[in-house]
């Protein structure tokens, strides 16, 4: 089916887009799309299935957006991709979950795991994810709204997408998993409800459209609803009906789309209120259209009739809810009939307006494919057995997973089903005569748009975007101090929590070294300088005070046996002071910018953090320390490394690599300073 319709579309496109500069590109996308669809259908591995599923989404994105310089076209492509892409992710989740629960990615093997899957705690999750995936792809309520937008694509594409393939991928998915996951109350009820709502909702919607493509899009959604609905019914009759209806729908909808394309191509309009009488200029097209409309209407002896019969039979035999469901099906079919007439009959009937007199028949490659498709609708209707074995049976078998042999008949005799069909036909035709579509009416329906899923989704999108703004604006607010406080607040909280969980400080005073007066004074001076640095009103005084801190540290290093450190600290400290002094005098005034409240908050946070570090330090001090490394160094420094200053031996030998990296850091810093100060880009070099 995919390849069949696909080939016809190829021919059709040839003429339709003749002269379009990117024809080859279009064919590229189209082939990719076809290949993906084929892959999707043919794959037994659900992961592969997912891959192809995504590929159909992405290629349809490119197809819908093909007229990429038209903003509407881009917008539709985005919308379609958003919805189907979202669905794709749900499918991914579903597929992996299935694989995880079922232990395999093969559908064949999953079939044998069916009971296990259904009993699993994750069953509801699986079907939920799967449903979302299928509903988005197959444009089920409330995810249907991307499909009318996809009309923006060049016609053959819409055709292909809408009628035959991509949207059916969702149906295919549901059908394919019915034997694996179906048959439970959750499965069936959800599908019935969603399917029913979709088919009725979309069918009613199609009544008010004026654009031929719009009409067809909504009727397609409705048809998809029917299919979901049928799969949801789950009885053998329903599944048979589904199988047949897929084909029925594919045939007439493809025809109608192609015809719409021709009309659009030749007349430049798709508005049904404007179009009329075109049969006079393009008879073969009119014939095809009329045939398709009849098949759509389910008039005997068309194939559509076979399909509709099966649907009614399925609903009628469905237990307690039979009447409600049949009613829904009837309403849907009436509307669809109306829509079919509007699109397939109206443009060709009546008088030919003056503006269309010069319209002529396009190249045969354009009108022959629809004619063939429409003709098939008639042929299959009269001789259903033609496809019974070859097409319907395998589909059906895979759906129900047993060996029931099916028989399709055009004529079942006079029965309730026939009566309902007649009722549908009559009401539909009546409706067509009474209800004249107009802009007025369309506008009235806009009032309900506020509640439509599309609007709601858009609103949700706006809400989401506002949320994004709020979130991003809150965290990424541009103020460095806020970033720092967030990070430190986070760290402090975690540290406090973890310390609180596991803290038990005890200090063995015997192990501590004594405090002498000179040390105490150094500590006092250092503490005072720290505080002085923080609160000093002058930058230079702060720098000088920083120097004092450094010198005090130097003394502490000295007292506690680190002469190398003391030397280095002292030299570095002096250099830092020099650096500051050299840089600072052409810096701006040193001000306190923040409010008192902020300062108090920061003060509390920093004191808290400092206390945490101090507590942590105390805790570590009470732990025993493994001294093996330092013992090894002490023993081998002279004997093996020929040095007596163990610190230096570590620096140039034991851990010499640190040092080489360290001097590299210095070199980079120097280059950085050099370029930062010396490099002045000319305005012509600034990018």
């Amino acid at each position, binding site marked *: 089916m995919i390849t069949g319709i696909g080939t016809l579309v190829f021919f059709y496109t040839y003429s339709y887009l003749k002269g379009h500069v990117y024809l080859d590109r279009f064919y590229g996308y189209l082939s990719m799309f076809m290949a993906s669809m084929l892959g999707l259908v043919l794959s037994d591995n659900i992961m592969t299935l997912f891959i192809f599923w995504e590929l159909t989404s992405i290629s349809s994105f490119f197809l819908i957006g093909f007229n990429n310089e038209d903003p509407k076209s881009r917008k539709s492509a985005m919308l379609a991709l958003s919805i189907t892409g979202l669905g794709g992710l749900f499918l991914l989740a579903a597929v992996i979950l299935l694989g995880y629960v079922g232990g395999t990615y093969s559908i064949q093997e999953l079939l044998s795991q069916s009971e296990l899957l259904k009993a699993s705690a994750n069953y509801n999750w699986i079907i939920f994810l799967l449903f979302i995936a299928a509903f988005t792809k197959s444009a089920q309520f409330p995810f249907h709204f991307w499909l009318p937008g996809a009309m923006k694509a060049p016609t053959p594409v819409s055709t292909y997408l809408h009628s035959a393939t991509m949207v059916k991928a969702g149906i295919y998915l549901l059908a394919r998993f019915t034997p694996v996951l179906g048959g439970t109350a959750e499965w069936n009820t959800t599908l019935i409800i969603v399917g029913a709502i979709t088919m009725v909702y979309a069918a009613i919607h199609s009544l008010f459209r004026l654009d031929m493509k719009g009409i067809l899009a909504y009727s397609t959604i409705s048809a998809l609803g029917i299919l979901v609905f049928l799969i949801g019914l789950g009885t053998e009759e329903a599944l048979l009906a589904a199988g047949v209806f897929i084909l029925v729908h594919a045939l007439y909808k493809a025809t109608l789309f192609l015809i719409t394309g021709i009309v659009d191509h030749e007349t430049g309009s798709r508005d049904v209120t404007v179009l009329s009488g075109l049969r006079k200029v393009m008879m073969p097209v009119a014939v095809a259209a009329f045939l398709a409309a009849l098949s759509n209407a389910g008039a005997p002896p068309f194939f559509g009739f076979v399909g509709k019969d099966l649907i009614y039979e399925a609903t009628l035999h469905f237990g307690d809810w039979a009447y409600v469901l049949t009613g829904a099906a009837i309403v849907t079919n009436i509307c669809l009939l109306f829509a079919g007439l509007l699109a397939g009959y109206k443009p060709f009937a009546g008088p030919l307006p003056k503006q269309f007199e010069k319209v002529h028949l396009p190249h045969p490659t354009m009108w022959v494919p629809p004619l063939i498709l429409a003709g098939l609708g008639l042929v299959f209707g009269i001789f259903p057995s033609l496809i019974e074995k070859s097409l319907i049976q395998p589909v059906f078998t895979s759906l129900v997973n047993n060996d029931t042999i099916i028989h399709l008949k055009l004529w079942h005799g006079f029965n309730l089903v026939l009566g309902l069909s007649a009722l549908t036909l009559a009401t539909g035709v009546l409706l067509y005569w009474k209800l004249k579509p107009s802009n007025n009416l369309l506008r009235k329906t806009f009032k309900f748009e506020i509640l439509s899923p599309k609007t709601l989704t858009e609103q949700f999108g706006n809400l989401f975007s506002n949320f994004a703004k709020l979130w991003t604006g809150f965290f990424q607010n541009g103020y*460095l101090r806020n970033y720092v406080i967030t990070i430190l607040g986070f760290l402090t909280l975690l540290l406090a929590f973890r310390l609180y969980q596991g803290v038990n400080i005890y200090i063995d005073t015997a192990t501590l070294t004594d405090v002498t007066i000179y040390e105490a004074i150094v500590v006092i001076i250092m503490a005072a300088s720290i*505080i002085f*640095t*923080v609160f000093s009103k002058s930058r230079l005084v702060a720098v000088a005070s920083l120097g004092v801190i450094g010198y005090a540290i130097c003394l502490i290093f000295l007292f506690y046996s680190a002469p190398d450190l003391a030397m280095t600290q002292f030299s570095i400290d002096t250099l830092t002071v020099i650096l500051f002094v050299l840089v600072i005098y052409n810096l701006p005034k040193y001000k306190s910018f923040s409010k008192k409240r902020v300062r108090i908050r920061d003060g509390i946070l920093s004191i808290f953090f*400092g*206390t945490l570090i101090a507590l942590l330090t105390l805790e570590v001090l009470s732990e025993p320390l493994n001294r093996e490394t330092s013992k090894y160094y002490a023993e081998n420094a002279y004997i093996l490394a020929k040095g007596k200053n163990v610190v230096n031996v570590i620096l140039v030998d034991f851990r010499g690599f640190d040092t080489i990296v360290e001097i590299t850091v210095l070199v980079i810093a120097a280059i*950085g300073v050099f370029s930062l100060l010396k490099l002045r880009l000319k305005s012509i070099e600034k990018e």
Partner: protein
Amino acid sequence: MELLLVILIGLLYAAGIYMMLRRSMVKLILGLILLGNGANMLIFLLGRIVKGKPPIIDSAEKMFTEIYADPVPQALILTAIVISFGLQSFAIILVKRAYKITDTDDLDELNTTDEIYE
């Protein structure tokens, strides 16, 4: 003495962080330096301190004969000090450059690169 050093370390960390939270670029740098000093002192203290016994082998000996200070933390601190010197120099110059370009010490005025539209 350890207790006093613990207090100093806590103070250095607290002061460093408090300075980092200021809006002045110069204070920010000062804060980073204080923080670096705190970390160095922390390594020093947690390597356990020993008084008056530098890790230098006596000229007559081939290895230590008595207690000595752990040389490892000292080597680490030395490396850390030098590295922070490099980083600090760069940061100081960056501040200078930032001031030259924006003509302010107020970090709050350096927030255009985070805006959505630019």
